[in-house]
């Protein structure tokens, strides 16, 4: 094993390729677990059982679903802008893989050590918006277009307070590298202990919900209004890719929060990688819990909430953080 790893390490290009393959497959595999948990939690909250048939406790249900989607016909609607229609799901997926690239799972377990990782993540995750707009616009379907436009309006508004709340952490730790931020927390205690970061974490949580289109903010794919939103016309593998990207993004946004606010891999007794996953899945559970509780907001309520409340509060919070914790 060691010899194999050493062999790849001797050839940096090969080593990069290995990391890319591992990350891409991880990004494809993680949604299977997250979707399974989502369906179980949804079932339990509604006094159902969730999937139980395929495999022990239905664990292979999502695998079976993914296989089914891969085998299905790939339909392109008449009048669709084919180039954009084809390429949109890949952009969505690639944007998530790119974000995973700079995410440290454990000490040394990071595909690309980047000193501006936070900035990189924020930049790359905006590709998701592009892909949603492309999908909505190219589908030649009014529901898709409405979903896409709503997605852009919503994601762009919530990106602002999200970035401002992430900035609070950067101000506190004096680093933009995710590894640096986590190592700071290992030494000085978790960031969430500081009041401004606490506020920032709450704002981040709300924005994250909006960012991954989950229920109080799931306007881009509001089933009761827009059929399925921007991915209405997608079928088969492309739909699966959108779905995978969404749930991988769900995983990533919680992992990012764990790194920023909850000390990443930091924790007693258990190995670091386990701590990362524990924190991530607890937060994913909270996301699901929220998803099955409040009803959907209206588009004007959502935008008003973002611009009139979250942006000023996060700006004030940033000032507060600078005043308190500048180093």
């Amino acid at each position, binding site marked *: 094993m060691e010899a194999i790893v050493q062999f790849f390490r001797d050839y940096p290009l090969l080593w990069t390729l290995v990391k890319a393959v591992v990350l891409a497959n991880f990004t494809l595999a993680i949604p299977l677990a997250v979707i399974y948990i989502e369906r179980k939690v949804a079932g339990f*909250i509604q006094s*159902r059982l969730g999937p139980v048939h395929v495999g022990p406790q239905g664990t292979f249900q999502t695998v079976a679903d993914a296989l089914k989607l891969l085998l299905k016909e790939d339909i392109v609607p008449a009048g669709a802008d084919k180039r954009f229609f084809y390429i949109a799901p890949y952009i969505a997926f690639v944007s998530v893989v790119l974000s995973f690239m700079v995410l440290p799972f454990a000490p040394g377990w990071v595909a690309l050590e980047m000193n501006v990782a936070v900035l990189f993540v924020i930049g790359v995750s905006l590709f998701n918006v592009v892909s949603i707009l492309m999908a909505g616009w190219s589908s030649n379907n009014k529901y898709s277009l409405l979903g896409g436009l709503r997605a852009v309006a919503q994601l762009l508004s919530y990106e602002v307070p999200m970035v401002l709340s992430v900035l609070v952490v950067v101000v506190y730790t004096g680093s933009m590298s995710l590894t640096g931020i986590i190592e700071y927390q290992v030494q000085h205690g978790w960031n969430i202990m500081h009041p401004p970061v606490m506020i920032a974490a709450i704002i981040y949580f709300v924005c994250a919900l909006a960012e991954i289109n989950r229920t109080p903010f799931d306007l881009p794919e509001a089933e009761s209004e827009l059929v399925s939103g921007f991915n209405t016309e997608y079928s088969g593998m492309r739909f699966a890719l959108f779905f995978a990207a969404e749930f991988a993004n769900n995983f990533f946004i919680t992992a990012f929060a764990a790194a920023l606010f909850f000390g990443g891999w930091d924790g007693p007794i258990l190995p670091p990688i386990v701590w990362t996953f524990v924190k991530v899945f607890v937060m994913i559970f909270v996301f699901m819990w929220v998803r099955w509780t409040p009803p959907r907001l209206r588009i004007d309520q959502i935008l008003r909430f973002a611009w009139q409340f979250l942006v000023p509060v996060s700006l004030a919070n940033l000032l507060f953080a600078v005043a308190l914790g500048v180093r």
Partner: protein
Amino acid sequence: MTIHQAPKRTKYNPFVYFVEGLVTLFNGMVVTWRNLWRPKVTVRYPYERRPVPPRYRGLFYLKWNEEKGRLNCVGCTLCAQACPTNVISMVKIGKGQNAGVSEFTMDLGRCLFCNLCVEACPFDAIYMGPAYELASERRDACVFRIADLAQGGEEAVRKNIETVMRLMAEEEQAKPAAAVHAPRGGHAE
């Protein structure tokens, strides 16, 4: 006379809005959290089933009379006449009080499960039972013969015919020898 006025609209205050939102969200999340741990209502149907209610209208059965050793049915066709969709057809054997059926066919593809045949029967012969999975991929699987319907199956049908024949023979023997039937349809000159 008082004029009802709409309640004064308070000015939109984002902070009040936010706090109210948090409180209602918290209340809702308590509800869903409790629901998470409540017993599940799902019945995993093919593996487990609900008990069938006692008066459930499922598959018909012809009642077996253990005392007499035969089916209760005497082939009077009252059920067939009561049926709005002509589900029932039968072959009668014998006549009079001891008559019975040798064949009793129900085409459940037409059946409404309306219970009229059961209500029409004066002999307690036909009932609706608790069996319910009657769907099939073939049309002729909807036709239920006497062996499918009788309580006790093939064996009961065979015994039923035997008993009815025996009863008929006994009746014949008990009659005075003089009373021979005239040939049917002919006038006795």
